[in-house]
């Protein structure tokens, strides 16, 4: 083989692998990404039952009910709309009523969000970013959502509220 042929073989091989990778990426982007919605967006967009998405908002105070064998139901609210959520399993350590939460799953035929994964914030100052942004956009953001317990607010940095 001449030098040119060798180079062409390598370049051709590279292009083939890159094309394969591009095809895989485009295919995966079509099927496997998950969109984020708030209860308001779910109501407006008429999300189809069975389509997976991430639901974010605040756990409605007083809505948490524990059933048999780790079944729980609660409502996720964003100020203007609420959506019932059903989940079976252990809730994260930092799951609290009135706090931010992100749940992944899909709506069932009755309009209940069947979650298979519930994520809560990582510490007391952290509000899931998606939730904070969505609440701010809708004008339901209250400054104390992300604030710390009163004793430490003086020096605490207000990032929980800003981000």
């Amino acid at each position, binding site marked *: 083989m001449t030098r040119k042929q060798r180079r062409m073989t390598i370049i051709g091989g590279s292009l083939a692998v890159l094309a394969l990778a591009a095809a895989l990426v485009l*295919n995966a982007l079509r099927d496997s990404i998950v969109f984020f919605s708030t209860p308001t967006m779910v109501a407006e967009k008429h999300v189809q039952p069975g389509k997976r998405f991430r639901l974010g908002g605040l756990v409605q105070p007083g809505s948490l009910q524990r059933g048999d064998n780790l079944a729980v139901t609660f409502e996720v609210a964003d100020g203007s709309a609420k959506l019932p959520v059903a989940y079976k399993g252990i809730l994260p350590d930092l799951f609290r009523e009135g706090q931010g939460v992100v749940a992944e799953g899909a709506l069932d035929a009755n309009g209940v969000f069947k979650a298979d994964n519930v994520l809560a914030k990582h510490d007391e100052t952290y509000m899931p970013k998606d939730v904070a942004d969505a609440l701010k956009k809708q004008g339901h953001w209250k400054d104390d959502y992300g604030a710390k317990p009163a004793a*430490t607010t003086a*020096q605490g940095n207000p990032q929980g509220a800003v981000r």
Partner: protein
Amino acid sequence: MIAESGHYALVLALGLALIQSFVPLIGARLRDAALMNVARSAALAQLLFVGASFVALVTLHVASDFSVANVYENSHSMKPLIYKITGVWGNHEGSMLLWVSILALFGGLVAAFGSNLPLSLRAHVLAVQAWVASAFYLFILITSNPFLRITNPPIEGRDLNPVLQDIGLAVHPPMLYLGYVGFSISFSFAIAALIEGRIDAAWARWVRPWTLMAWIFLTLGIAMGSYWAYYELGWGGWWFWDPVENASLMPWLAGTALLHTALVMEKRNALKVWTILLSILTFSLSLLGTFLVRSGVLTSVHAFASDPTRGVFILLILCIFIGGSLSLYVARASSLKQGGLFAPISREGALVLNNLFLTTACATVLVGTLYPLGLEVLTGEKISVGAPFFNLTFGPLFVPLLIAVPFGPMLAWKRGDLLGAAQRLLAAGIVALLALALVWAWARGGSALAAPAIALATFVILGSVTDLVERAGLFRVPFATAAQRARGLPRSAWGTAFAHAGLGIALIGIVCETTWNSEYIGTMKPDDVARVAGYELKLGGLFQRQGPNFREMIAQFDVSRDGEALSVMTPSKRSFTTRGSSTTEAALLTRGASQLYISLGDVTAEGAIAVRIYHKPLVLLIWWGPVLMAFGGVLSLSDRRLRVGAPKPARAQQRLQPAE
């Protein structure tokens, strides 16, 4: 006083870094050896001052000086000593200080052990190293000074995030940073080569040990982080395709590619331009990782509270270094001479294939990580890209790579014999097919992909063994001769075999864990028995205990199998009073390479407790694999030919030279 001294030492380090950035370059232009040698002393002095600054911060944390904001926000006087020390880098400011300290450490190492480098190359390398250091010193001093004081010092600190109060924090970040930052050396060498317009096999011989060292630390750091997440986060997952994990995986993939291509360059003087590009890309990905984690554009377990100005600052650093180095590359790369020729089927060809797949896989991870950010900026739509995306892209790209792995070391340089290699791998292939049939016949349930994946892993492991067997001539020559030959093999050959086998072992662990994992999730009262994978776990009772800075509730499980008592497992739930938060401490019982895993949920009104019990078959192989890879790396590093630096001229000759 200590805080002020630490701050002052950091400012001095910045000053030294600025001197180191320019004086050696001027020296190189003027061919003035004295000016070029400034780089060496400046790098060592810089290391001294950053080290002092770091020690100052550690001292402040150990002494619980709450008049320093960083200590107040992340420490507590009741915290055990080990977490007072590790807490230094369990926050943004401290972890950046650790970052620059390690950068200075590597600069210092080049200065100390690089006496056999050509003078101008060393001057250039250290100058580039100092550019990076200066940028990050400025970043720390302007946006994230760890030594800020509080005017009215509080009596007690706010404690470290409980999740971070674990031995994992002592090991994972320093290891990871040694890896990340270690790639700055190959970056500096690449830039120096571009500036000088000269690059040869000796260059690769210097770069390879540094890259290998960084790669070993990064491999161990990632594995350690994964194991930490597995036992600390309480739901048994070991890799989440979280953007921050991806940020560490990308430099690893690029670094692995660099390691292989540097080999081609060293042995055959080919692929120079590509090696330079990979060196730049690997460190750029490390910088990108730092940006993603430290800027707060992503929220994850790793993101400490962050502030937008920091994000902009790091983005600026990122743009300057990546943009600058790539522009320099475009301008100068064509001046580097082309190297040796090789046929597509040859050792070089195999290494090119390796690079192709590794970098492409790296690119898909990059797309998956940045796509949500890009989409949000462009359309405001929020999406998350999770495991399904990476399984569909990263997975298929790794399959051909793994098939090719055993062939690589069997091919000769320049022109290889694919048929011959295939013949030698026949035995490994047959055993792999047997494994396929066995798994197919025995496995109950699970994905249909499990059996082929295990066959592939078997092929990779046996392929690496075959390589050693072939080289030693086992079964062809008498055993004693073969053993002697095996001992005589270069350590790098053993290193290659271990590292490649580690890949297969990790794959077996991954497949077994994801396919045959069994779990029990439910509520249990005392004396209830849960049955998982043949084990019986009886909840003995719940106890309360007071820890140094937390209270914990311990559940005691008596584990037995077929009526035979095995062990007692005590998972617990800790609540930390200062932060008002709690963590779940999972209990692990290791049986061979498999583990039983229990983590606790909430106590219900009736006094029952929610538990999650997993049986994870062969899960430990997931981490033994990387450890084996790192061990292979260490073996290869200890190879006489590759020991740090190039072969030295004979001693006697050196003595005759007049002193410089």
